[in-house]
């Protein structure tokens, strides 16, 4: 019965010991796994070799217990493995770089936790050494496991001890480190924002926010220079009025030059809104310029109420934030420009469309007069205009005009001129009178800096008489008998003067055409065409082509001129519209035409 009791008790003890042992085994595995995880935390290089070596020695120690079990004298391998394991534990315990990445609050928490754990592990380690019931149970279960448990407790003690001291030494710098970490994060966020957010105001808000936070300032604001005016983009922790007043006070002070970051001491601003009088006193203000292509486009302000100066790090941070603001601002400006450019291009399309609709689609055909018209618009639409009016069966009115200025406004003036000329051509048979009337009408409607040059002439299709007057326009060129003549009767541009002076100075001229004579009417786009060397095409080249090709028909002459012009200015963009009207008088054709008809 006693024996029964003994065996029963034994049985219970064994079960109990086994349970204890397994609990310990499970805890040991869990603790070891946790250590392993901590060990690999935030490691820059792969440290697995160190850890694996340590594990190998743990195992060696474990199995070396078998040797001592065979022969208790044979214990030096066990001791050797134990010492090596201890060394490896110490080395591995130093891998705790992750502490640096904790914020201050976490570090304080870790400090307390690590000292508690270190003491607990130390206490347990002492327990495994002592000859108590618990360690007996484990030794009976497995001497190897006992050794491992022992090592694990040492590992814990050393590891948490190291953590405790490291954290302790890290604690004073924790705040600075936190700030740096936040700075890095903010910069990363800003980089993302700069590329994603196209609205500058939105970005300015973030930038002032971050500046206040990172640079230990009480307020921050961003000022943009817009047409020489200072414009507040965003404020943080300060009112618009106050920030506006303070920035103007500083920026308009001639003694303060802000080429790079500048700090100012003691700045006060007083603001009264109705009866609410407020006074702001900043001990320190830092101002960083926003530079886009070396031009100052704005300023970033950071202001501090407490009396300690912005240190090196603060200044660096403010500078980098102002750089980000510059980039964002530049982006915003570029986008605005491209939108503006698109708008202008659309406008030019409209202008070009208007121009094409205004110009005649067909050139009239006569037996006695060969006619051809050539028009090449410039990218930036000029205001060239030409037209033909069938006054009666014997008389053809011809006009060529050039509106000063370009683009949509020039196109609209063209439209007006077409209206003026086509209505006047039907009622006034005299070129000078017609142009005087046109000047009267246009002087009223044109703005003071716009004028129109023109030549208006009438060809008598029976007699070959060409009567014309010139208003500031390029000379009429006539090629006769292989020679070129330029006709420049006096006359001011339309819209230049609204007094009688226009009429009194305008001369009308009459030319009698002979068979084979060529008349050229054109706009200054031809003689003023430039090549890459900034040389002008000029009159000599123009007239030479006309003379050389006088025998050809008008269409061919026009094409020849355009061909030579293109060759001449091939490396240069065409700046102005080019219009060319070529007429050739050939009365013989008419006669034969009549006979045949």
């Amino acid at each position, binding site marked *: 019965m006693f024996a029964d009791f003994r065996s029963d008790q034994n049985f219970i003890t064994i079960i109990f010991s086994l349970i204890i042992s397994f609990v310990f085994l499970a805890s040991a595995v869990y603790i070891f796994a946790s250590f392993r995880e901590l060990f690999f935390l935030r490691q820059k290089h792969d440290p697995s070799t160190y850890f694996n070596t340590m594990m190998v020695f743990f195992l060696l120690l474990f199995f070396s217990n078998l040797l001592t079990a065979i022969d208790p004298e044979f214990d030096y391998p066990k001791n050797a493995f134990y010492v090596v394991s201890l060394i490896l534990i110490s080395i591995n315990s130093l891998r705790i770089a992750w502490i640096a990445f904790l914020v201050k609050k976490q570090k304080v928490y870790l400090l307390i936790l690590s000292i508690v754990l270190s003491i607990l592990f130390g206490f347990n380690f002492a327990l495994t050494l002592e000859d108590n019931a618990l360690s007996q149970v484990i030794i009976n279960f497995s001497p190897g496991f006992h050794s491992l448990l022992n090592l694990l407790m040492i590992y814990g003690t050393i590891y948490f001890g190291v953590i405790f001291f490291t954290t302790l030494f890290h604690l004073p710098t924790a705040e600075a480190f936190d700030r740096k970490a936040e700075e890095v994060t903010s910069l990363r966020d800003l980089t993302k924002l700069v590329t994603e957010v196209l609205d500058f105001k939105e970005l300015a808000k973030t930038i002032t926010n971050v500046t206040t936070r990172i640079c230990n300032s009480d307020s921050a604001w961003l000022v943009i220079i817009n047409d020489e005016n200072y414009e507040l983009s965003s404020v943080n922790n300060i009112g618009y009025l106050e920030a506006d007043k303070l920035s103007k006070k500083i920026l308009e002070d001639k003694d303060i030059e802000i080429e790079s970051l500048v700090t100012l001491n003691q700045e006060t601003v007083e603001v009264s809104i109705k009866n609410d009088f407020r006074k702001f006193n900043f001990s320190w203000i830092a101002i960083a310029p926003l530079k886009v292509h070396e031009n100052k486009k704005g300023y970033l302000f950071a202001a501090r109420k407490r009396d300690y100066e912005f240190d090196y790090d603060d200044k660096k941070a403010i500078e980098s934030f102002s750089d980000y603001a510059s980039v964002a601002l530049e982006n915003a400006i570029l986008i605005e420009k491209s939108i503006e450019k698109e708008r202008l291009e659309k406008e030019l399309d409209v202008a070009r469309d208007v121009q094409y609709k205004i110009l005649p689609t067909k050139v009239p055909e006569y037996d006695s007069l060969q006619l051809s018209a050539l028009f090449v618009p410039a990218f930036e639409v000029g205001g060239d205009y030409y037209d033909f009016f069938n006054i009666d069966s014997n008389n053809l009115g011809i006009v060529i005009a050039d509106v000063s200025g370009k683009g949509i406004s020039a196109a609209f003036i063209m439209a007006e001129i077409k209206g003026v000329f086509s209505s006047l051509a039907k009622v006034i048979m005299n070129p000078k009178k017609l142009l005087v009337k046109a000047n009267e009408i246009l002087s009223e409607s044109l703005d*003071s*800096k716009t*004028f129109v040059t023109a030549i208006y002439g009438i060809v008598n299709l029976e007699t070959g008489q060409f009567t014309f007057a010139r*208003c*500031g326009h390029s000379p009429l060129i006539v090629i006769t008998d292989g020679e070129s003549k330029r006709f420049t009767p006096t006359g*001011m541009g339309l819209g*230049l003067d609204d007094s009688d002076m226009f009429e009194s100075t305008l001369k009308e001229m009459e030319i009698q055409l002979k068979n084979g004579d060529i008349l050229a009417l054109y706009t200054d786009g031809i003689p003023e065409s430039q090549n890459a060397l900034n040389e002008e095409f000029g009159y000599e080249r123009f007239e030479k082509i006309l003379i050389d090709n006088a025998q050809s028909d008008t269409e061919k002459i026009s094409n020849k001129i355009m061909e030579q012009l293109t060759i001449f200015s091939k490396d240069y963009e065409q700046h102005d519209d080019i219009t060319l009207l070529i007429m050739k008088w050939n009365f013989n054709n008419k006669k034969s035409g009549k006979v045949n008809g």
Partner: protein
Amino acid sequence: MADFNVNVRGLGSVSVIDVKGYLDAHTAPQLENAFNQLINKNNYKVVVNFNDLSYISSAGLGVFMAYVETMRENKGDIKFSNMQDSVFNIFDLLGFPMLYEFYGDEKEAVNKFEKPE
């Protein structure tokens, strides 16, 4: 891009504007600014010295047309001097010599303001 420069000098009661380079639609606003500033200071007697101007476009010509009336209404004028032939030809073709006074030398133009005949 061709350069353009404006410089304003005071010469007694007369202001002299030196223009340099290319005067076209893109650079004309600079010249307009100079005229606006003179008007703000009630300086209506202006001589424009064209000595260093190599090109003028129709937009450039328009600037003088826009301001000449204001000057004349206030007993002043815009007179031109030291023009290169190529630039003068453009003014001439348009009939400017019938409306504006042109002088070979800046001094002549200034004297004309001070001792009108």
